[in-house]
């Protein structure tokens, strides 16, 4: 069990040892995002860009044009809200080889509140042509996605939650772009989730089993592109599909699944996530209760739907 931000810092340090093209650009949050580990290990390739997120996106594009592999490090909200225009025009429209390390995604951002909680980023980035959108669940998957992104030639948006969650995967984990991962088979209901929320879905499936409800869990680390056939195939086996994400229910994973299944099956899809409201400063447990995203709340909500 290791926090994704520590995985981010440590993996970049390791990549920097073997790949001289890897550079890290910080917008004055390195000690929060743990990009500061790279600053210590590779000071010549750590580029402090100050509190100026639009500029640092452009700088990364310039560096990428010379063959560097720039990793941008900041909070999710400052990419998808403040710097979205340079990401759109300079990065996505030119297919620049820029990696967006978006830390503090979702609700649980270390008591920072709605100003720093980004629950729209999947919807925003998913609508952007040429952008690859990834969201790891745990440490092993996080490391694999950072390594894959560094090898891949093109723009990547990597959605990283702040805090540690129990491990789902181990060192043998291998990432395939677009591929979904069936973690639990189920015959009554299928939960589809992404990021660390998947860990809570697996726990909810255990709780539901005690209530004699067979719940499957499909994990989606690759939000864009995604293997649509795998989602359809998994949904075919159940009557009810529930999407679960630390994100607005509009346009994110829930939107993606609804789009896919309404064209292909269709199947009833219920979206769990943040409804049309902002978050607040509070401990993680409080937030999970308030937005009914903890494993017990998920189990209760699904029992009501399935009952």
């Amino acid at each position: 069990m290791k926090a994704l931000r520590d995985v981010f810092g440590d993996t970049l340090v390791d990549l920097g040892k073997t790949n001289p093209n890897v550079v890290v650009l910080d917008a004055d949050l390195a000690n929060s995002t743990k990009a500061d580990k790279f600053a210590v290990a590779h000071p010549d390739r750590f580029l402090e860009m100050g509190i100026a997120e639009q500029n640092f996106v452009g700088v990364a594009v310039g560096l990428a044009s010379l063959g560097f592999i720039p990793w941008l490090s900041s909070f999710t909200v400052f990419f998808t809200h403040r710097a979205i225009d340079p990401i759109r025009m300079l990065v996505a429209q030119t297919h620049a080889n820029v990696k967006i390390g978006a830390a503090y995604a979702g609700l649980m951002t270390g008591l920072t509140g709605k100003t720093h909680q980004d629950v729209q980023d999947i919807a925003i980035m998913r609508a952007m042509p040429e952008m690859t959108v990834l969201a790891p669940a745990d440490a092993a998957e996080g490391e694999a996605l950072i390594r894959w992104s560094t090898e891949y030639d093109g723009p990547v948006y990597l959605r990283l939650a702040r805090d540690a969650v129990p491990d789902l995967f181990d060192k043998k984990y291998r990432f395939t772009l677009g591929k979904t991962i069936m973690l639990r088979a189920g015959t009554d209901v299928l939960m589809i989730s992404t990021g660390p929320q998947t860990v809570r879905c697996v726990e909810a499936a255990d709780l539901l089993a005690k209530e004699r409800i067979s719940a499957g869990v499909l994990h989606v680390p690759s939000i864009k592109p995604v293997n649509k056939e795998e989602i359809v195939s998994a949904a075919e086996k159940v009557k009810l599909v529930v999407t679960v994400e630390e994100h607005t229910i509009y346009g994110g994973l829930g939107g993606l699944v609804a789009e896919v299944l309404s064209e292909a099956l269709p199947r009833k899809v219920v979206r769990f996530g943040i409804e049309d409201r902002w978050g607040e400063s509070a401990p993680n447990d409080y937030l999970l209760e308030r937005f009914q995203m903890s494993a017990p709340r998920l189990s209760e909500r699904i029992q009501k739907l399935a009952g």
Partner: protein
Amino acid sequence: MSSEKDYIELEMLARKGRWLAISTVAGSGAGHVGGPFSAMDILVALYFRVMKIDPKEPRMPDRDRFILSKGHSSIGQYCVMALRGFLPIEELKTFDKGGSRLQGHPDVTRLPGLETSTGSLGQGLSVGLGIALGARLRGEKFHTFVMIGDGELQEGMIWEALHIAPRYKLGNLTAILDWNGLQQFGWVLAINETHRGDRRDPWSGIDLRGIFEKLGWRCIEINGHDFAQIVPALEAAKASGESDQPTMVIAHTVKGKGVHFTEGKHEWHSKVATRDELKVVAQELGIEEAMA
């Protein structure tokens, strides 16, 4: 050093460039004129005299880089690139047409010779900063030029780049401010206020040079339509590539420069010339109608 005779050749190229720009826009039925005309002499100086470039090898690794951050002046850049041999002059007719390499705003994925895409204003200087920084990290000696507009300078993102570039001591980066004093719509002139355009200068009464210098830029102030000032300024900027200060060439220009009825008129920011107007343009620029 360049001689006066060289400038006569550059002046002729700039007249051709202006003719190609306004006639291409007329052919496409939409496009910009005022900005391309104010930038034209500087573009000609860069492409024909100052930059190390090869139209046959547009991706030559040690080429000097140029980014037109004020991307809506794209037709000006395309016309100069065509005159320089990066594309056939005939291809200018495809400007703004479906499938064309010559998009309304510069598209790096389509036209070799561009360094990035621009159009949404205020972004080009940051990319130039990244290229110059990367060149320093790699030990490359080429120079990076970025042209920004004075209207564009209202964008906050440019100011982010303006304070970061001097921190990295990027002498290999030159920004060129095409200060033509007019933007698309802007503000009306105050009572009794006179200036080279028909609207208010966006930076009227503001000491931009002082601000740039305080931020750490080496400033060279020129008349952006006088090759005897443009060429030495850009060459001096390039010659200081190994210094510890980026250069800002503040070019005082006239929007719509070169034709009497487009000069200083904000409405010529984007406007299509009529057939009769084109005749006047050709006459004033000394262009044989046959070139059309």
